[in-house]
């Protein structure tokens, strides 16, 4: 190994030792700082998870935003194909599916309690072949749906057009509510992280104050800015890292517990989503970044 590398390594080791000393200058404050980081990180991760769940549910609901186009009994296959093609090319349409009379019947049967279905004679539940037209989420406004329904009704071979059971207005309201919630959650997350940043800066400033004399002496002995700053950055970044990763771990535990509870009590199959890889990656990078920014602010304020 070349000499500069050895010297650099020794300096790095020294900085790590000094940074660790900084962590224990006021252990209570360091701990409080890490806990607040963990709480903030956990809340941010949880809100992301729950908004994710809401988005998934909205997506499912919007998939139900479909118009059933019941066809007249006697329509040629070719005509049906032409009609489907005509609808499929519209920009606001997500998908077009053909339902046979049997399929429609079983869908209708699914809406009734099983014992009622069993008690009914064969053929009592109506079934009619149809085309299911699903909308793109963003296009599913009451006006577009109504427009499309009117248009479909005008096509040849169409018997009845059934508008969606879940009102598009409701889907839209839900979507905007989620959007609103997202904005609020993002603002809260930013505020929380800004708050914890103050905490980090406070802890580091305290370390600097406790080392003020030493840093003044080091300056006179020829310490560079980097030499004085390195321990502070290490201290801040390790605090940020431990805090946010702990928060992510807490969020993972809480979502897992929530999912277990929901599955056990409500039989919900839709779990609260939690993506460990991106979450821990963001926690790591975010923690390091938060610590570095805190150290930069603290050293700008206090470096002799």
């Amino acid at each position, binding site marked *: 190994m070349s000499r500069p590398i*050895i*010297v*650099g390594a*020794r*300096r790095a080791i*020294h900085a790590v030792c000094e940074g660790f000393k900084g962590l224990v200058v006021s252990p209570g404050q360091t701990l409080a700082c890490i806990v607040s980081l963990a709480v903030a990180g956990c809340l941010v991760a949880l809100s992301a998870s729950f908004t994710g769940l809401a988005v998934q549910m909205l997506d499912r609901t919007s998939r139900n935003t479909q118009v059933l186009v019941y066809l007249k009994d006697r329509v040629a296959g070719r005509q049906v194909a032409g009609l489907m093609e005509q609808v499929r090319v519209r920009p606001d349409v997500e998908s077009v599916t053909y339902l046979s009379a049997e399929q429609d019947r079983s869908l209708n049967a699914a809406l009734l309690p099983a014992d009622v279905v069993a008690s009914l004679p064969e053929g009592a539940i109506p079934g009619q072949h149809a085309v299911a037209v699903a909308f793109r989420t963003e296009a599913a406004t009451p006006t577009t749906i109504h427009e499309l329904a009117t248009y479909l009704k005008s096509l040849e071979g169409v018997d009845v057009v059934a508008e969606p059971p879940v009102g598009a207005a409701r889907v839209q309201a839900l979507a905007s509510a989620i959007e609103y919630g997202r904005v609020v959650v993002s603002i809260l997350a930013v505020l929380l992280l800004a708050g914890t940043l103050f905490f980090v800066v406070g802890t580091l400033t305290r370390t600097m104050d406790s080392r003020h*004399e*030493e840093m*003044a*002496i*080091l*300056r*006179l*002995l*020829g*310490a*560079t*800015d980097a*030499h004085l700053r390195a321990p502070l950055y290490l201290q801040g970044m390790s605090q940020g890292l431990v805090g946010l990763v702990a928060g992510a771990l807490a969020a993972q535990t809480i979502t897992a517990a929530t999912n277990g509870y929901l599955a056990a009590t409500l039989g919900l199959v839709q779990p609260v989503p939690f993506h460990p890889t991106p979450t821990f990656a963001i926690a790591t990078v975010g923690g390091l970044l938060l610590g570095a920014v805190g150290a930069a602010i603290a050293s700008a304020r206090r470096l002799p």
Partner: protein
Amino acid sequence: MPLVQLHQVSKRFPSGTQALSGVSFSVEPGEFVFLAGPSGAGKTTLLRLLLHMEIATEGDVLLFGRNLAALRRSSIPYLRRNIGSIFQDFRLLGDRTVFDNVAVGLHILGLSRREIRRRVNNTLYDLSIDRYADAYPSMLSGGEQQRVAIARALVMQPALVLADEPTGNLDWELSNDIVRLFDELHAKGTTVLMATHDRFLLDAFPRRTLLLNKGFLIEDRPAGEGPSVVPDAPQEDLGLPQPPAADGDDALEATSVPTEATP
């Protein structure tokens, strides 16, 4: 090439105080120079200019032939590694042992543990404080604490030593010891610039003396010449302590009270 060079250097603080006015002199490598003058003369300000802790408002300050004003901020630390600075109030870290206090600067250089131990122990031995390596500064006398501070400066093997009233808190005997220490250092080739307003030391060690008063360099007295009284200024006005009386005990008493240190 002179080690220290000042050309018409003035320093005015933002408060309006004119601490230095048109000071010019140079110090060659290997010289021992006293910087004398009463309280408020500008001695500390001059040393702080050399350490680049203050910046001259006028004139040029050259150190090792380099103009400090033209130096990049990032090269200041490397310049300071060649300067050992010592202060009246020692500035030791109370929560570190003597060994750690002396070693503190060596970590900057990225030396190995072994090299640090070797250098610190040698320096402590040279200054006869090796038995205090594991003690804390508060357990030492003033003279011993100042030796630790000197060890911290010398362990960096500086080419230039700047000492600002290093004996200000010490009694006569200890002051003599400290200056003798600087003398030995000087004999080994280190350049020493020491600020003092202790008239007895100036008498006892006839070295080149730069006399400052109210920010002006009023005399540059070569080594070996006796001290002179500044014209138009009674000695009391200079704040210089009176020379010891014929009675030795009185003299000790008179000087062992550090006027500067009493708040």
